[in-house]
Structures are given as C-alpha cells and as structure tokens.
C-alpha cells in the first residue's frame, strides 16, 4: 500500500503534469487572458477561455513551471493576491456569459511574501471564498497535485471537487505540521499519516466527490478520460437553475463538520 507521505512525494514530483499541461490536454483553442485589472498579472495562475468539445469554458489553473527558469517565473506555483483577483475577475466574466468554470489546482499554497501580505493575501482569498459561494454558474475544481491550504481552497469553492489519485489536500504541509508538533520537519511522513491528506481520506471525509485513477495510465489516456468526465458532469449540472446551483453549493460545504 502507498503511504500518505509517498502520495505527498508523488504529488510534488517534477515529472508530474502541470496546470498548463492539463489546459493543453483537456481543452482546445485556449486563449489566455491576463491580469487582475487592478495591479498586476500573476504568472502563478493561468486563466482564459477554451473549448471542451464544443462548449466554451472559463479555465483557471495554478502553474508551477517545468524548468528552473519557468518555475521562477511562475513563483513555483504559489500565487500572489493578484492571482486570486485575476481568477475572480475571470469567474465573474464566466458568470456574465454563462460559462462553466474549471479550476485546475496544484499549489503548495498562497505565497508568503512581504508584498503579498501588503497587498492583502488574506483579503484576496476571503473574497474568492465569498464570491465563489454564490457565483451563478457551475464550478468544478480538480486537484491534480498539491492542494495546499487556503491557497488551494481559494480555487476550490465548487459544485464538485475531484482529486487525482496521487493528489493531496491539506490544511498544512506535513513538514509544517511536524515542525509544530515535534519541532522536527524530518518527521513529516508521520505527520502526513495523521493529517489524512490523501484523495481516499478526502473522499471518506466527504470533502471531494471523485477520485481520478491515474496508475498505469499514460498522460493522454488520463486526459481523454478526464475530459469525458468533465463533459458528463457539465451535462448533468447545466440543467440546474442558478438558485438551485447556489443552494446545492452552500449545502455541499454546510454539511462538513
């Protein structure tokens, strides 16, 4: 059996497909839209429009980068407030044009920087949580790698949340947790086990709706299957009225804990 910490390692693996890979693999005709229209464009979150089959959708993805140069450019996939504000701007746009929103998440968390704090990292995340709760268009979030705390949650207020088999979703990194508990980051594997951060755990805790199997699948096979599942999901959910949609989304989170 794969241990919780082995899942963490797998989720962080540099060989794993990144957000951009999923945009390219799942959708066609992607047009990137930049900027929060307030301060800056955050390269840690990619947003834009694309087709899934023949349905235009708003697509958002955190992006870690592939090599040293792009990882630095993408700030290792840790967004600044502008990233969250850009995502909210594009979600509001999706609402206006009645497009579904697909969020692809792979982040260690929101960036812990001086500027990020000065420009309201907490406020930006809080606003996403609040606005996504009542966004009048379907939202699907898919955790493809790391789902790091509030920085991931800010893109995961959705009608359904799915996780890849080797993705993790946690309130704190196992290293951070081990550090607090035992002042010893080396004991992260133990902390990982306690935190219940695997896809299976999240499923049994009622935090996600679906686990996407990835073992033994090559990337294109995985993406074809995933694209099909997204289509099916949208077909079902698009029949709901905005009020029904929002009521169900509220209940989805209301029942946890």
């Amino acid at each position, binding site marked *: 059996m794969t241990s919780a910490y082995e899942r963490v390692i797998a989720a962080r693996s540099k060989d794993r497909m990144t957000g951009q890979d999923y945009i390219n693999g799942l959708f066609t005709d992607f047009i990137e839209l930049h900027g929060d229209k307030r301060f800056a464009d955050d390269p840690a979150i990619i947003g834009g429009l694309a087709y899934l089959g023949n349905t235009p959708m708003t697509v958002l993805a955190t992006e870690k980068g592939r090599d040293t140069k792009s990882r630095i450019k993408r700030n290792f996939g840790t967004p600044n407030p502008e990233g969250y504000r850009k995502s909210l701007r594009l979600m509001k746009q999706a609402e206006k044009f009645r497009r579904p929103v697909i969020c692809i998440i792979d982040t260690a968390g929101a960036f*812990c920087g001086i500027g990020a704090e000065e420009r*309201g*990292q907490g406020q930006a995340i*809080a606003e996403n949580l609040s606005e996504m*709760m009542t966004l009048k268009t379907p939202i699907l979030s898919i955790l493809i790698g790391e789902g790091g*705390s509030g920085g991931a949650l800010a893109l995961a207020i959705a009608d359904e949340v799915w996780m890849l088999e080797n993705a993790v979703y946690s309130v704190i990194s196992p290293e951070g947790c081990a550090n*607090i508990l035992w002042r010893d980051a080396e004991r992260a594997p133990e902390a990982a086990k306690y935190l219940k951060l695997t896809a299976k755990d999240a499923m049994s805790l009622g935090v996600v709706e679906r686990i996407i199997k990835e073992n033994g699948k090559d990337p294109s096979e995985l993406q074809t299957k995933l694209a099909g599942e997204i289509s099916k999901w949208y077909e079902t959910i698009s029949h709901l009225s905005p009020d029904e949609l929002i009521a169900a989304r509220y209940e989805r989170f209301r029942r946890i804990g």
Partner: protein
Amino acid sequence: MAFNAIFRKPKNELEKGGRPPSKRVESDIEMAQTCPNCGTANPISELWETLYVCKCGHCFRLTARQRISYLTDERSFNELYADIESKNPISFPGYPEKLEQMRKTARESEAVICGTASIANEKCALFVMEPYFMMGSMGAAVGEKITLLFEYATENAMPLIGCTVSGGARMQEGIISLMQMAKTSGAAKRHSDAGNLYITLLTDPTTGGVTASFAMQGDILIAEPGAIIGFAGARVVEQTVRKKLPAGFQKAEVMLEHGFLDMIVERKDQRQIISQLLKMHSPPKNTTLPSPSQS
C-alpha cells in the same frame, strides 16, 4: 520550502494554547502585568478600569468574556450554541487530551463564544473568539458555531458583530478545519446578500485561515491599535523572502495605510463607534431628511 513554514508562527501559541489567564483570575492583589511595549508594571487590580490598555497605548490580550463585558449592555448577552464542542474528526493523536487541557485552563468549551446582545440598546448577534483556547484556532466546532450564528442573524434580519483573534485553522482537524473557511464564508455571504450589516473587530493577532475568510468579509473592518493582521506568519514570510521585514509589518496601522481596514479604534471608544454604526444601519423609524431650503 515556503509553504512548509506557513504555520510556524503560531507554533508556541498553538502548542501552549496561549498564556493561561490564571494570573488575572487567581491573584488580583499583588500581580501586575508588565507591558511588553514600555515596560510599565500595570497592577492587575487597576487594569480593568483602562480595559487592559497600558498608558502607552499597548492593548493587553483579553478573554472573550472580558470583551463581551465591555462591548455589550449589562446583562444583555444571551449565549447561543454553548454546547457545541470539538470532536476529533480525523482521529489526530493527542488532540482529545489537548482539548481537555484547554477546557480546564481557558475555562471555555471552545475557541469562540456566540450569542445575541444589545450595544447601547441596539440588538445584534455577536461572536467573540477566545485567544486562550488554542489561540482562537478554527476547527469544526468554531466553524459550526459561527455558521449557525450567521444563519440565525440572517433569519432574524439582525446585524452581526464579530471579534476575531486567531492563529488560523486548527491543524489537528486537518482538511475539516480548512473546510470551515468555506462554510463560514458561505454563511456570511448569505447574511450579506440579505442586506444585513456585518462588522468585524480585528484584534491581536488575526491570522491565517481566519483572516482569509470571515475576518476580512465584514462590511466595515475595525481594528484594535497595534493588532497584527495577516495571512502568513511574520517569521514564515521572513524565512521565505530572506529579507528583513519592513517596520510595522502586518500591524493594523500599516494595514490601514494599505487600504485594508476602515478604521482603528481604541478600546475605550469601540462600544460607542459600534453602537453608532448599528444605529445608522437600523431600519428607519421615520425618515427625516432635512427639507430643501426654500427661497
């Protein structure tokens, strides 16, 4: 790695659950609280008169009950949901013992107290977080109590006042604690969309998942002087960027400058300001706009 360190800041507080209030409670006479800012020894017996504010302006940490006591009208507070307590949703080792210990030292059952009250005769719903209970960290019980309060206030078309102090999400409840950010945000949004007023009073420290959810979602954000308000802990930021932090980093005064707060209000004035804001948002009795002057 940056993210690993996010929760390092509340390390001591989370571990110890903050300073126990025993000093204040047990020996009123000879005990003094030394101000960390100016070094003055403030006799405990005199501190209540200044609402635990040193003459230099430093605000000592208050228990939730103390805050309720100076903010609300005498005997107007009616506690709700006091029986909701934390369980151990992810079977985290040592957590039940920790809770037991906290219940003894903090003499509270959870890290938030909810209820209704009146402030200068203005009725409102009120939650006050408890710093002496695991540093006001948010688990399922805190999330549930706050959510229920927002739902109650929405149903009864009441304004809601929230006093925050928190190290963030409660690690020992794992992903369930993270989900409380979503749950409370949803309830706060419904309350807001129904046209109700929500005022937050941010006190030292308000950080992590609480900042990134209901603390920042008020219509009007008031902070206590000198309060640390932020998402990541200062030490974590310092370790991440490997730079010295600017003066006043995450202090309320700097947050005000950056445009994230409506105002900073001293403890002695908070009751008056909040009651005035409540009055200004209460349903109009009879509209008395000044009539246009006639020539």
